[in-house]
């Protein structure tokens, strides 16, 4: 059940020029793929809370990974350890555990955020995991060692070839799929998610995608965050997702 929780900041550090990690302690629970809404300021501008996926959660410690893109994330970056912050969560439907013995996790850039927690859970459930990590440049592959250490197999790609394979992370995915059947999990930019969904359909794998939208309430009340469903209706990213089965949202 989501609640409004006052949490203490214990760390708030830069992982790259653009990406930061904040650690919060307080009375919250979470499942992989769920998110929280963070009240970045008590003033009325910027007005809305900012949604961030649960990067990790254990022992009452919640970690978020966030990319500096605008005013809200800039304000968050200036918050100091010791300060408290109001968080609403846990929110949304997370990743299901899947059915196959093997799982492939596809991360695009900051889309890696929710995938650490998922990776740990899948490993803990005894699955074999392949973690495929793509980004524009080597510097954007934040926490690569962490993912590499945890996953059964690990591969990476960059647009500019500065680390790993030069090209799209979906090329890595196709190679893995040629060898094995697996449940696929992905988070990243929409074009990447569409490509992942296409490959999953082609190889007849279950596929779960974490989507983004502009949220207002984050709890399903405002109908502001909808994405078109395959059946012509609209789905709310905040409560029907953010994780969707690929076929709910993308034509194969």
């Amino acid at each position, binding site marked *: 059940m989501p609640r409004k929780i006052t949490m203490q900041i214990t760390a708030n550090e830069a992982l790259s020029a653009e990406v930061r990690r904040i650690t919060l302690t307080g009375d919250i629970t979470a499942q992989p793929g769920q998110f929280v809404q963070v009240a970045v300021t008590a003033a009325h501008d910027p007005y809305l809370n900012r949604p961030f996926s649960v990067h990790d959660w254990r022992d009452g410690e919640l970690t978020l990974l966030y990319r500096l893109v605008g005013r809200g994330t800039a304000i968050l970056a200036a918050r100091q350890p010791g300060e408290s912050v109001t968080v609403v969560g846990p929110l949304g439907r997370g990743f299901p555990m899947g059915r196959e013995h093997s799982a492939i996790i596809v991360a695009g850039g900051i889309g890696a955020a929710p995938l650490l927690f998922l990776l740990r859970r899948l490993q803990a459930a005894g699955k074999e995991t392949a973690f495929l990590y793509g980004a524009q440049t080597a510097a954007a592959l934040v926490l690569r060692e962490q993912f590499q250490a945890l996953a059964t197999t690990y591969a990476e790609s960059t647009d500019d070839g500065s680390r790993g394979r030069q090209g799209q992370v979906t090329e890595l995915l196709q190679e893995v799929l040629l060898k094995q059947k697996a449940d696929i999990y992905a988070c990243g930019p929409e074009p990447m998610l569409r490509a992942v969904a296409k490959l999953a359909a082609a190889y007849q794998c279950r596929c779960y995608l974490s989507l983004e939208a*502009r949220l207002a309430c984050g709890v399903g009340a*405002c109908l502001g965050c909808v994405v078109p469903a395959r059946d012509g209706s609209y789905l709310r990213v905040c409560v029907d997702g953010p994780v969707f089965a690929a076929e709910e949202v993308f034509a194969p």
Partner: protein
Amino acid sequence: MMPDLTVTIGQLVLKNPVMPASGCFGYGEEYAAFYDLSQLGAIVVKGTTVEPRLGNAPVRIAETAAGILNAIGLQNPGVVAAKDRIRQLARYGTPVIVNVAGNSSSDYQRVIEILEDEPTVAAYEINISCPNVKQGGLAFGTDPEVVAELINKLRSATHRTLIVKLSPNVTDIVAVAQAAESAGADALSLINTLVGMAIDAEKRRPVLANLTGGLSGPAVKPVALRMVWQVTEAVQIPVIGMGGISCAEDAVEFLLAGASAVAIGTANFVNPTVCPEVIAGLSEYLKRHQLRSVQELIGLAKAAGKN
């Protein structure tokens, strides 16, 4: 001694003057995770139409300075499905107000007809002012004669409390308010959203798929307070004030301006427990100011405004 928070809106006696605003609280269940909804003075559910509506394409929300624009487009499951969800609210024992929307007076009549046998419904809030529905909607809310005609018809359709929700996008809101009053409205609610727009400078296009949307949140509070003040000078029926309320102090301001109750919309999105916090804050305020009843606050700033 606990101050008395009771207020009366038409036939409804509310245990406190605080309710969520329509469209910002779904059919209640979403916020039931955060607190016991029976604490609320009333529950106002989202705009309900005869047929189900898909609503507008996304993007539906744009953040603005101290507010948001929304262009939901009245997405709702239609009155028949809505009725089942409204019935679920009976357990909270707090009056349920259904926000009714449509394109023609027969649409509104039909929604009321279908809800008349549902005992959970305590009152209708007639939304003549949704800026995000292209046909009809806006016209209803801006012309006093059209409003009078509509409310006359709806008055004969129900004995329940009839609240008319006014649009702020008019030259003279008092004229519309008076038209609704003389046509038999039991109460008024205001304001709905101001029509606005957001443009993405980088993408060089409007942010909302619907181009325009309705502005709400703290940004609009000054306009809402002014309209509540003006309307309560000119009508005898009670007014439910809303527009940018996000804390108890804001609610007090609306009561001081003449509102008999308040609704809280967008602030729920930022603070899911804002409604119970405002209720508690009102009690605190009354105690601190040694007032026994919230009714003493209603319109209290008017006297001061006159010297």
